[in-house]
């Protein structure tokens, strides 16, 4: 054997040896943060480890793009962490571990998290994959101070998208604000008004249906708003792929009258707007078919390839337990998924009265969520639909595609994805 071979071998051995082999009692959680939730989780886990000294839990904080882009590849290769917080729950459900044999009381899980269990397991299965760390609902936010100053009354809960657009335009003109209205660059977000306009992406056989009239109606309206300057065009044209872009900065800056985003913005607004102006959550505006928002959220799931399913089960049991879930929600200002926690009532940790009002508004708005919208998170093809929607509607907004071309491309992109998955 030559020196070089030896050297190479030595290098490789050193490399292999330094691979941290999964020790018994080692649990890794991969976690992304929008705000303080990483710190809250660390707190909760520290307490868990004090009570369970034989289990060592490590939280790997990563970026959201890491979860979206690198994690799928790791999972495909049979790797990844033991527990992970993800939003693409359904498409990747074949990688999740069935926790039923590893949790203390499967019935507790079914009772309290059963409603979203379908969002994170393969179709037709009854496994327990994990639980939702937070439930989100899309909805609008209005800058009430701007409305007051313009002397325009806030549209009521029954107001349509057109009413809001017209009112926001009036306010923007009177107050010299650049943008009346904005919608996050996201397929999930635009699906809410689409459904209110009567869209249904799901065909009778459960497969993706071609874009229907309801969706086309709203997309046409939205693209029109962008070219008329009613909607903030920058948000949608500012990327080419499926990249998410929010208009939160403009709203925080009082450059935007009406902002359609979701419940997760509340903690963000509370810290960044502070006392600068009054803002209110308005629920979702109406279309001809419904006044629906889109449910969603991030789930914490166990990964099938873990070496320590027992310990993973213990960690998941702890995090899903009522007091822990309650504390997590109260400190992060997230809407909880746990039924017992919701029934017990929450005391959100914020001294900002606008925050509580907004959280309540979202709870109230959840009653108008359309059944079609409720089905979307548990539907296997929703991500394929959303990503096609984002890319193509952006191109239409940027003037690269006509509406008809955009519709056609959305259908084709979805069909390609279906074909690819076979």
């Amino acid at each position, binding site marked *: 054997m030559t020196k070089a071979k030896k050297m190479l071998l030595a290098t490789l051995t050193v490399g292999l040896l330094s691979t941290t082999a999964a020790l018994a009692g080692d649990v890794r959680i991969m976690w992304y943060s929008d705000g303080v939730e990483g710190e809250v989780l660390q707190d909760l886990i520290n307490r868990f480890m004090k009570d369970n000294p034989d289990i060592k839990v490590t939280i790997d904080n990563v970026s959201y*793009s890491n979860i979206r*882009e690198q994690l799928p590849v790791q999972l495909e290769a049979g790797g990844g962490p033991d527990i992970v917080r993800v939003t*693409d729950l359904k498409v990747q459900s074949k990688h999740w571990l069935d926790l039923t044999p590893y949790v203390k009381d499967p019935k507790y899980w079914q009772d309290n998290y059963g409603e979203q269990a379908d969002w994170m397991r393969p179709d037709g299965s009854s496994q327990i994959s994990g639980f939702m760390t937070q439930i989100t609902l899309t909805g609008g936010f209005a800058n009430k101070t701007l409305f007051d100053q313009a002397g325009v009354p806030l549209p009521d809960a029954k107001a349509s998208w057109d009413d809001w657009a017209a009112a926001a335009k009036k306010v923007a003109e009177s107050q010299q604000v650049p943008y009346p209205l904005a919608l996050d660059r996201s397929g999930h977000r635009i699906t809410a008004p689409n459904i209110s306009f009567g869209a249904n992406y799901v065909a009778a056989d459960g497969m993706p249906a071609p874009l229907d009239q309801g969706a086309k109606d709203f997309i046409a309206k939205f693209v029109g708003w962008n070219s008329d300057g009613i909607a903030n065009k920058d948000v949608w044209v500012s*990327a080419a792929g*499926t990249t998410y872009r929010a208009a939160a900065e403009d709203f925080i800056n009082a450059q935007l009258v009406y902002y359609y985003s979701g419940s997760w913005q509340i903690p963000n607004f509370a810290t960044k707007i502070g006392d600068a102006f009054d803002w209110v959550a308005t629920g979702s505006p109406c279309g001809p078919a419904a006044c629906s928002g889109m449910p969603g959220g991030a789930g914490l799931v166990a990964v099938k390839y873990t070496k320590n399913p027992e310990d993973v089960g213990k960690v998941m049991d702890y995090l899903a337990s009522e007091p822990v879930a309650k504390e997590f929600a109260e400190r992060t200002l997230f809407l909880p998924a746990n039924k017992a926690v919701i029934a017990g009532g929450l005391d959100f940790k914020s001294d900002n009265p606008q925050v509580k009002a907004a959280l309540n508004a979202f709870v109230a708005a959840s009653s108008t969520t359309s059944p079609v919208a409720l089905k979307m998170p548990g539907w296997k093809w929703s991500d*394929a639909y959303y990503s096609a929607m984002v890319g193509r509607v952006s191109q239409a907004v940027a003037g*690269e595609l006509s509406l008809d071309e955009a519709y056609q491309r959305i259908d084709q992109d979805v069909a*390609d994805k279906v074909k*690819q998955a076979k």
Partner: protein
Amino acid sequence: MAAQDSSPRPAPSPGLTGAFFAPVRLLMSLIDAPLRAWQKAAGLTGMAGFFLLPNMAIFTIFVLLPLVINFVYSMSGGTAIFLAERTFVGAEQYERLLTCASYLDPGTCAEDRFWIAVRNTGLFLLVQVPLLIAVALVTALVLNRDLKARSFWRAVFFFPVLLSPVVVGLIWRWILQRQGLLNLLLYETAGADPHSWLSDRFWAFAAAVGVSIWAHVGFYALILLAGLQAIPKDIYEAAEMDGTRPTRVFWRITLPLLMPNLLVVLVLALIRAVQVFDEVYVLTGGGPGTSTMYLIQYIFETGFASQLRNPGLAAAASILMGIVLVVLTLIQIAASRASERRGQR
């Protein structure tokens, strides 16, 4: 010679360097004995093999093998990563990439985003490369003058080359966005309303070109500067004696003598331009619409990032692009050979 060297004689380089190199030197002389044996057994060719082995082994595993796998990917379908789990589809991915009703209009192609990326990359190439070379040339000419603190000025233009592409993109996004420095300056000086530069087709393209020039011009300027400094001074002196005008000196003397370096710069800049990605991706994300989406972004998003992940299609696109790159690289080799020959003359 060997015995002499391994004796602990104080190293000629003093202090720290000497202390650092002493164990290295010892190690190297220890390796020497077994290697002499190998040299005796295998001869000079065997030694060549020994010197090549580590590099080629790593190169084969981590560069060549992925390239081969990539080719197999391009002939298969599905979202799986391991080859065993992928299905063979033949030339289907290539077919999909190359199917167009009209090659002049990306909108008529089956995979329209690929052709948009090709068109955008072509446009970028045509604008960025000449501008980059022009700026690099002026910079080199300026730096070649009799300047005070020339090494400082040389370094000024080289500074961005050292930054990572992510940082470059971030820095400029922070300047060009709505709440950015540029709008602030325009507002303070001209009272102009804020403009969303990166959402404007023209300005986003200009920004992509400008930022990539900003980030790389120092590198090319240095190559050109080396060429300028190699031009013998007496040629200029003779021209000055004859009273030749400086512009004429530039066109008649400087430019022709700089040609070999210019050629290297041209080919390098072309290859880099075909590969433009990181800094523009951070800067514009490919927008507005798809107007700054370039080939690598298309390949990256198709293969890795997008929810529409399709590694086979990405691999096929990368192989088509690879062919273009190899052609460009071959041109470079030919060019540098030609200039070497000229240098020998």
